[in-house]
């Protein structure tokens, strides 16, 4: 039970990075549909950086850089060239798929055994981790999960309590007003896309060097889209994103638990693997009263 909850929290971590990134970008009017590709690029960058340097920290830095570059390409095409966000995202996702496996081959050739790195270690926090149940679940995690604890309050504070947050939200609701106020709509949106590149890169690295310690091109397998869905389902708020990621993290941990313990009984493994996606569909259908940013997905062009 404790293991399951701890696992759930761990699986939630990358989803939270991804969905908070998506919340910021979408509040400014940008659907980052390249999120799946950004995750994959991050996973690739994290592994390559860590393997070549021997340092997981450098791995994460490379992951951030890889996510940043991917997001920048997406941002330039969608914001500066005003192209369609869904279509551009789809193109980037294909490109990244090819790029990752191509560059992996360029760097490592065809290794006989799969290359691995030692994944991030859990860091038990002294005293706190001694608390029964809660301590072992919350305070016996790796560094990325600890950072996650800080992200939600920080994101909430920035989005709702600062003028920066107000500007971001206005950019998604009423870009003309932001423009009139003398701020650059395109600049703000580009900045948000870059932030989602950074956070998506870290999220991707979590999958490669956070717990598996290896890289394959199918390791993200739709998790970027899950983060994307969580942002929608959480009504574009950090609190909603937190709730959504915990639900999905728990589902995923449950699926892994059922598969490894064989306690699924009459239910096939595939059902558990598909569970997060089925859940996402059910929630998308049943969820009422969406608070969609008014100009989500609409390119902004300055009137002359």
């Amino acid at each position, binding site marked *: 039970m404790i293991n399951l909850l701890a696992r759930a929290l761990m699986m939630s971590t990358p989803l939270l990075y991804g969905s908070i990134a998506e919340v910021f970008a979408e509040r400014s009017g940008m659907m980052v549909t390249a999120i799946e590709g950004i995750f994959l690029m991050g996973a690739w960058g994290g592994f390559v950086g860590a393997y070549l340097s021997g340092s997981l920290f450098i791995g994460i830095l490379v992951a951030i850089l890889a996510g940043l570059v991917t997001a920048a390409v997406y941002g330039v095409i969608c914001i500066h060239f005003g192209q369609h966000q869904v279509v551009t995202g789809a193109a980037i996702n294909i*490109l990244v798929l090819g790029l990752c*496996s191509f560059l992996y081959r360029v760097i490592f050739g065809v290794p006989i055994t799969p290359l691995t790195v030692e994944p991030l270690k859990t860091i038990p926090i002294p005293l706190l981790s001694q608390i029964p149940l809660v301590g072992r679940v919350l305070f016996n995690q790796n560094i990325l999960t600890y950072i996650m604890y800080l992200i939600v309050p920080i994101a909430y504070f920035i989005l709702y309590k600062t003028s920066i947050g107000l500007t971001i939200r206005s950019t998604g609701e009423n870009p003309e007003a932001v423009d009139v106020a003398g701020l650059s709509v395109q600049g703000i949106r580009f900045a948000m896309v870059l932030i989602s590149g950074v956070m998506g890169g870290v999220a991707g690295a979590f999958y490669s060097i956070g717990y598996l310690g290896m890289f394959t091109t199918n390791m993200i397998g*739709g998790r970027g889209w899950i983060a994307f869905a969580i942002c929608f389902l959480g009504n574009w708020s950090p609190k909603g994103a937190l709730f959504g990621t915990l639900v999905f993290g728990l589902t995923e941990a449950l699926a892994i638990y059922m598969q490894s313990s064989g306690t699924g009984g009459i239910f096939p493994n595939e059902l558990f693997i*598909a569970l997060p996606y089925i859940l996402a569909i059910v929630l998308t*259908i049943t969820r009422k009263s969406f608070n969609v940013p008014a100009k989500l997905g609409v390119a902004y062009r300055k009137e002359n």
Partner: protein
Amino acid sequence: MKKFKMDVKMRDLLLTNAIAVVLGLVVSGVMILILGKSPIEAFGNFFSSLVRDQYTFADIFVKATPLIFTALAFAFTFKANLFNIGAQGQFYIGAVIAASVSLLLGEKIPGILALLIVLILTIIGGGIWGAFIGFVKAKYKANEFLVSMMSTYVALNIMNYLLRTFLMETKGEYPQTNPLLKEVWLPKLIDGTRLHLGFILAVLTAIGIWILLYKTTLGYRIRVVGLNDNAAHMSGINSNKIYVIAFFISGALAAMAGFTEVNGVQHMLVQGFNPNIGSAGLGIAILANANPIGIIFASILFGALNVGGTIMGELSGIPSSIIELMQGFVMIFVILSYFVRGRMEIGREKKKIQLQGKENKLQKAVEQ
């Protein structure tokens, strides 16, 4: 005058797309250079291999066949301003139905009739799988983008489950079905190649979809919903009904790709085959500006990238991921070419206005 303008647009489209494709290949060539191979030799192999024999050349059209269907699937809903990015899943559902019905009917019914039943059931099954997305959009206002994306992963797991249990080969070794009987194979068009009737079916379907979209009332309604949902509502078009119909047709189209692949090429169902066919279809639809006739040619182009890329990999020792790389770069440049075309259009409009201004001035001068 109007006809002339259309021609200019068409010329822009062809020209910018051609440049985009070339640029995509050039950048891929740079990637080959990074690998330490010669891109000139690689592309030399690429082009010479395509025409080296009948088999390889025909394979371009074999590869293009399912792409025509998945591209049509995306383009069709796109015309109604809906996003079906679940073509991959609908393709798998179609493949599962085609394989299981073929295995079931293979011995009992004469070949042609069996094929027809397989096709019809595939269309119905894929259509219902797709229509579900349109239904929840109409009834619960569920975001079709999310539902269609997630439905792909559900379909994939349904396929994996069936291949592990009911549909698994009798040997029980690999997650794949028994081979289909020869009677339910799609007939070959040319002996000594893999080219099958499915390609003709795909081309006819594309033409049919073009007629449906531009020459029928239903197509008109679909396009009106796509252009302006409110206006459609005002003029008495039930957009909820359109959502369901559009997604039914879209799902059926993607499922037909499953039929042609299973009955025409693989002759069995193999786990996780053609994993990028949905996203490649999306790319093709964009390349063709969602025009069903354009999709035929764009699919042949992607088919050529696929065949040439594979052989180039074998001959020059380049990993097969070069195919996705080429497709990805081509797509990016094609998207950018939309921007360039927009600029060209604005430039022309400006010129026209300037000319008109001059003419007006002249006229005034003459009048005075």
